[in-house]
């Protein structure tokens, strides 16, 4: 932390310069006046926080920055300084324990980090220096060093690729350890760098280190003798990141640009923002209440003490004379120290151990998610992943679910369904005739009645083959001759003899599965993409001829433009631009007369739930190309605003194209997507689908997932509906918003808390659809006054709809929506689930972010709080795990406050009987051990194992989730109940024993009991009562619960005998010597203990019994529903009525 901050401070002046200059090989360059070796950090990776020397102070400092630890430290210091009733050991020991355990844990983790760091830092690498290869340790690499890396080695720092052993000046890299994407990525050498690195004289100018893995801008100046320095642009494709591994390439040489802590990998390991759970907020609120109780208790006692002492004879009776020092002390100082002493005496009301137990519960509890074999997906051989355990209970509180569509609701497993060329439909026949499709070598199109001209057809298929960024996966076989082999296979297929499907033979790797589907689709129609070889794209056409196209430019896909293009030059010298993209982004850029024929197909495909793409092309004249080329090169060289400049050029190039066709790709629904969504809605969650996809596609997915149903009335607020009236968009928007608001909000019958459709059958369901463009109009309306009004109208409408679909969303808009809902009235708990990089922003924004281990890389998983392999796992994660965790931790928190209240209350009451002298009621050992040993384990076991309703029932009855909605178990009412219970118990313990002690002769031999016997009886009742109270609350008794609950009680008895059975030489006073044994020899003590325990638990037992007749209990309910699974939908409506009544009943 400190180091980073310091770096930031020191790096201040460096940062002002937006770029850094690197001298390749540390060779001074002719152009620069003077060679000043710039200072960069070394290549040491320091992920460890501490060194041997600073561990103790730094770790202690960090630990005491936590407010709770600091509070306990203060209490401890007060005990050391002021003469207080309890020895510093009582609070010092638990604090010491907590601090030590934490320090050991952190120390161990840091030691592991040191070890890992050393492994990386001491790794031997080869550095080229003055023409010689020098083996050196990785940490000694400096910026500007030329480093050689061999195959399967990881890059020791961020390198600019200068030289590759491959002929085509590329190398392959996997970034599995960085972002989890295991595909090979191609990186390129800087064009025109000399083969002889010895004589390379160049400088690199690049931006300052920044954490984005996929962004890099820079340029390279290459100086040659007697020549103008050449300038080459550098992009992410030239940058090899530390942590990535070299593949398929014998060796490369690169120059180090970012080293050590400035590498992108290191920058990415900086901590994410901390999410805090609602439970934690509740804890803090309760803590405040208890702090007030504590302070007021101390104040009351201090005041009463001085009032009492003012009576004659009470201040200093002869038998209890003050010491000289006490007499000398100033009255006010005495009052103050008395106040502090009372604080210390009562400080146990806020226990250190609660924090430890809560942390342990969260940490250990999260293992159950990782361990759950239901989350294990055999396909990817992985289970669930927990990135943070702080939010376990939040999973039980979700009110809004924001889900991505592609890859989340759908499988992102694309299959080419059909295409449309020049207005003619080409449907690929499936239904058992797949082989037929392949057999027809002269083109499957012949199967269709109508077809476009052969020329158009082939142009379209070429476009599909060329316009993509797909790579061909090289099989591990020998590199050379592979292409031939492949060709043979394809030949064989072409001849119709082989059964093998080309998909299985040939692996395509692409960033998006759509592209693979398209390339495979083209292959079915006879055009096979063979790969990219030194900037030449090879295509095998229908006649089994290899066509070569020189790849000039790739105009990358981005979600804003929603299209991508390639510029290629064919053998014949024509320069062609192929573009594919969403219809909305293509249609405005092509000739309007072509649009109509294809639009029909696109829309039909979209309503069927397919993903559609339009394909367009354009022939570039030499001048046009020259202009575009210059523009692109210039934009790529720009160090600042490169993105914007590129975008401008792209938009300029991609105009006036002609539309050739459209494709339809099916994305199948995830397994059990509909069931999951139904369960979530049944659980009272509102599901919003946020997708970048088209409205029609998204809508059909929503229907398929049963988010929208046949009787759902859809309220549409999209560009199309806005343009309907032919008036200004703003006016129409205003009108529609008011209209929908009236429909969905005002006319709707008054909703009770937690109503959704499953039991409001009489009500009309509404679904709301909005698109990105309209959303930005709503959110960023030109009139400021309207903006907030629209926003609140929009929000109200959405909150009254059962499902909301937001399509055509940019990633940032997704986050915007999440934020809007998150900050709306009542602060509902939101959950985002997604699988791709475009979902990261909403995953980070929501209270709980869930990543799906899908096909679009690992970015979502890395940024999520929890990651699951499939959407269907969400149901169990929320309904079972979330529900249980919430109940567990809520009970844990309430119980902790309760048990410490009834622990300390008798001690407070005792002050009224001991002259407010801060006499502790319990022995120091009991004070210390109460929270650590006697009562901590049962609640920990409870909070890990409790299943008040078993998992199957929770999964079967989604409505049970509603019972704990809105933090139901940690609101003020239950808190008040627990507090009253604690007060009741405390009063009972104290006064019960007090009346027993009206005659302290409690043994049959007439001997009397003293004050420690009194305290021990109270304490015994206390320990037994709070433990049995927990036992009463436990609904799920595993052997662990039995062991821990009875074990704790047995331990208490054993400890008391042991502690009182020996004269402890280190103790100044043997207060408890044989007190416990003597207590047990008194029948009266036994009877009073039994009486008080029973009396304390009586209200709880009664409550359990009297609560029941109100409705069928959950267990019975589930049995019923299991019996009647035949007509489920009908059954749930019948069942839910009493259930709902019960929820209401218990709230009243």
């Amino acid at each position, binding site marked *: 932390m400190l180091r980073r901050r310091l770096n930031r401070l020191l790096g201040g002046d460096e940062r002002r310069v937006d770029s850094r200059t690197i001298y390749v090989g540390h060779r001074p360059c002719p152009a620069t006046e003077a060679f000043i070796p710039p200072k960069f950090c070394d290549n040491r990776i320091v992920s460890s926080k501490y060194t041997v020397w600073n561990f103790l102070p730094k770790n202690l400092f960090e630990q005491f920055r936590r407010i709770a630890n600091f509070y306990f430290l203060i209490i401890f210091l007060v005990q050391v300084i002021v003469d207080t009733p309890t020895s510093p050991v009582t609070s010092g020991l638990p604090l010491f324990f907590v601090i030590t355990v934490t320090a050991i844990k952190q120390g161990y983790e840091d030691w592991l980090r040191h070890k890992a760091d050393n492994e990386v830092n001491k790794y031997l690498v080869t550095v080229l220096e003055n023409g010689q290869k020098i083996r050196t340790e990785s940490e000694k690499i400096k910026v500007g060093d030329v480093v050689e890396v061999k195959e399967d080695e990881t890059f020791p720092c961020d390198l600019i690729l200068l030289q590759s052993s491959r002929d085509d000046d590329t190398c392959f890299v996997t970034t599995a350890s960085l972002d989890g994407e295991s595909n090979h990525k191609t990186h390129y050498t800087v064009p025109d760098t000399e083969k002889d690195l010895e004589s390379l004289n160049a400088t690199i100018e690049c931006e300052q280190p920044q954490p984005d893995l996929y962004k890099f801008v820079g340029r390279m100046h290459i100086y040659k003798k007697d020549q103008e320095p050449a300038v080459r642009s550098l992009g992410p494709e030239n940058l090899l990141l530390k942590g990535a591994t070299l593949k398929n390439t014998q060796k490369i040489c690169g120059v180090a640009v970012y080293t050590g802590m400035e590498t992108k990998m290191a920058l990415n390991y900086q901590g994410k923002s901390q999410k805090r759970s609602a439970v934690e907020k509740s804890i803090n609120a309760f803590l405040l209440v208890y702090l007030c109780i504590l302070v007021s208790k101390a104040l009351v006692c201090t005041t009463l003490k001085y009032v009492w002492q003012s009576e004659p004879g009470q201040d200093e009776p002869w038998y209890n004379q003050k010491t000289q020092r006490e007499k000398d002390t100033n009255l006010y100082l005495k009052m103050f120290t008395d106040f502090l002493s009372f604080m210390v005496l009562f400080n146990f009301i806020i226990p250190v151990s609660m924090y430890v137990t809560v942390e342990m519960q969260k940490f250990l509890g999260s293992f159950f998610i990782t361990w759950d074999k239901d989350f294990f997906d055999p396909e990817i051989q992985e289970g669930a992943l927990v990135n943070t355990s702080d939010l376990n209970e939040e999973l039980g509180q979700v009110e809004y679910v924001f889900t991505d569509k592609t890859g989340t609701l759908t499988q992102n497993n694309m299959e080419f369904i059909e295409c449309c060329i020049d207005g003619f439909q080409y449907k690929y026949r499936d239904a058992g005739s797949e082989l037929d499709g392949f057999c027809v070598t002269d083109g499957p199109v012949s199967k269709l009645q109508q077809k476009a001209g052969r020329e158009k057809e082939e142009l379209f298929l070429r476009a599909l083959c060329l316009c993509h960024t797909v790579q061909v996966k090289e099989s591990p076989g020998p590199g050379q001759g592979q292409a031939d082999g492949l060709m043979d296979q394809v030949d064989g297929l072409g001849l119709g003899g082989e059964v093998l499907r080309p998909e299985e033979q040939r692996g395509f790797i692409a960033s998006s599965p759509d592209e693979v589907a398209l390339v495979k689709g083209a292959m079915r129609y006879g055009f096979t993409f063979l790969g990219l070889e030194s900037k030449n794209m090879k295509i095998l056409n229908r006649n089994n001829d290899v066509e070569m196209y020189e790849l000039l430019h790739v105009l990358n896909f981005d979600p804003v433009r929603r299209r991508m293009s390639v510029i290629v030059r064919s053998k014949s010298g024509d320069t062609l631009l192929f573009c594919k993209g969403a219809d909305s982004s293509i249609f405005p850029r092509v000739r309007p007369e072509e649009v109509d024929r294809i639009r029909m197909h696109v829309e039909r495909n979209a309503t069927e739930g397919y993903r559609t793409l339009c394909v367009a092309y354009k022939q570039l004249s030499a001048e046009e190309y020259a202009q575009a080329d210059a523009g692109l090169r210039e934009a790529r060289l720009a160090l600042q605003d490169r993105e914007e400049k590129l975008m401008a050029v792209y938009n300029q190039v991609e105009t006036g194209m002609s539309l050739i066709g459209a494709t339809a790709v099916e994305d199948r629904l995830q397994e059990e997507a509909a069931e999951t969504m139904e369960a979530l809605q049944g659980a009272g969650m509102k599901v919003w689908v946020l997708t970048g996809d088209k409205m029609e596609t998204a809508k059909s997915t929503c229907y398929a997932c049963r988010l929208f149903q046949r009787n759902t009335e859809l309220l549409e607020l999209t560009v199309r509906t806005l343009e309907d009236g032919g008036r200004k968009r703003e006016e129409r928007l205003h009108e529609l918003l008011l209209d929908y608001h009236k429909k969905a909000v005002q006319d709707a019958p008054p909703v009770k808390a937690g109503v959704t459709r499953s039991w409001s059958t009489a009500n009309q369901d509404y679904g709301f659809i909005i698109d990105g463009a309209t959303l930005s109009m709503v959110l960023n309306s030109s009139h400021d006054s309207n903006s907030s009004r629209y926003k609140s109208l929009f929000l109200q409408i959405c909150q009254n709809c059962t499902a909301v679909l937001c399509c055509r969303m940019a990633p940032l808009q997704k986050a915007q929506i999440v934020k809007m809902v998150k900050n709306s009235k009542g602060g509902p708990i939101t959950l985002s689930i997604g699988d791709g990089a475009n979902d990261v922003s909403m995953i980070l924004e929501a209270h709980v972010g869930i990543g799906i281990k899908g096909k679009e890389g690992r970015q979502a998983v890395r940024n999520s709080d929890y990651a699951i392999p499939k959407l269907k796992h969400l149901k169990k994660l929320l309904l079972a795990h979330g529900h249980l965790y919430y109940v567990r931790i809520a009970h844990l928190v309430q119980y902790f406050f309760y048990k410490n209240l009834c622990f300390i209350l008798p001690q407070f009451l005792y002050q009224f*009987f001991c002259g407010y002298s801060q006499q502790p009621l319990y022995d120091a050992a009991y004070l210390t051990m109460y929270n650590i040993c006697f009562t901590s384990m049962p609640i920990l076991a409870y909070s890990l194992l409790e299943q008040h309703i078993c998992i199957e029932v929770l999964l079967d009855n989604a409505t049970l989730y509603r019972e704990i909605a809105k933090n139901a178990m940690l609101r003020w009412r239950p808190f008040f109940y627990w507090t009253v219970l604690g007060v009741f118990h405390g009063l009972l313990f104290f006064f019960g024993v007090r009346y027993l002690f009206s005659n302290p002769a409690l043994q049959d031999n007439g001997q009397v009991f003293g004050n420690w016997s009194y305290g021990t009886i109270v304490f015994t009742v206390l320990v037994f009562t709070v433990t049995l109270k927990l036992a009463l609350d436990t609904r799920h008794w595993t052997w662990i619960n039995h062991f821990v609950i009875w074990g704790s009680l047995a331990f208490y008895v054993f400890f008391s005998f042991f502690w009182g059975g020996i004269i402890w030489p280190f103790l100044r006073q043997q207060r408890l010597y044989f007190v416990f044994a003597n207590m047990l020899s008194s029948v009266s003590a036994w009877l009073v203990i039994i009486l008080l325990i029973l009396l304390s638990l009586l209200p709880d037992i009664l409550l359990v019994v009297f609560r029941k007749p109100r409705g069928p209990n959950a267990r019975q309910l589930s049995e019923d529903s299991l019996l009647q699974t035949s007509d489920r939908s009908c059954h749930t409506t019948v069942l839910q009525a009493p259930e709902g009544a019960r929820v209401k009943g218990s709230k009243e």
Partner: protein
Amino acid sequence: MKEQQETANRPDNTAFTQQRLPAWQPMLSAGIVIPGFVIIGLAFIGIGIALFVTSQNIQVLERDYTGVENNSPCFKCSDPSTKNCVCKLDFSLDKLFEGPVFFYYGLSNYFQNYRKYGVSRDDRQLSGRLDNFQSPDEGCVPYQYDANNKPIVPCGSVANSLFNDTFKLYQIVNGARKLVPFDGKGIAWWTDHNVKYRNPSITPLKNAFNGTVKPTFWSKPAYELDPSDPANNGFVNQDFLVWMRRAALPDFRKLYRRITEGDYKNGLPAGNYSLEIAYNYPVLDFDGRKKVVFSNVSWMGGKNQFLGIAYLVIGSLCVVMSIVMLIVYAKFKFPDEE
């Protein structure tokens, strides 16, 4: 290879990791609770009756002898200026006071549980460690050293304030006074007497106290507390031990003697008695009271109505509750089951 990976990644399928440990899931249903309550209620009522009857049978005779009122026999002694004052407290029993009779003294508004008072002692010294004779524990202030800087043994407020009224009980038989023998053994906890408190193993005991002074309030040193029994001196003196066990509440009684011997083995016969009190202990300046209590003891200890009544109340409450529950269930549950 693939299989290995699978076993490595697949979560363990054990009952624990899958949260499927076999569990007992008790439900507190009416079928259990109502009979349970009846049984508990009846048991409590039984115990309550036993306690109540036992407590009723315990005889107690209490007399305040502080001497605040003018007509009180000890009024003359209550003036702190009078020294070695003896007063007589007469009482008569109209029936046999069953033995063994326990004789307690009681103090009111006396805060033995005051914190600073309580810590003002040196347990190491009291366990006979000679080091602590010469340098008593810090906690003993202001009774650590006397004005001449000599160590006080036993040090501390608790020891210093040892109750020092003494009592002699006479039965008036035909006008003559007959001494009722007191038994002073076994009035303190056995462990206190035999383990926790120890005299230094020096004979004669007096030598161990060389160089120390007696507590300022005491009239005689610790080794001369009981002239009649040399074994009952020093820190193992029974009266001293009883006093050192601090009372829990400001209104307390402590065992003084038992009457177990001679003619009084079976209790105090009906008749007139006179209690001769050597009145030494000042309590009036802090508005305290002193009393003597004669009581016999049952299996439950001294007389205490609280326990019996509490058991009776709770027992009946349980029974009533079970009846109420039965009615509630009859009303709500049974139509449900049809």
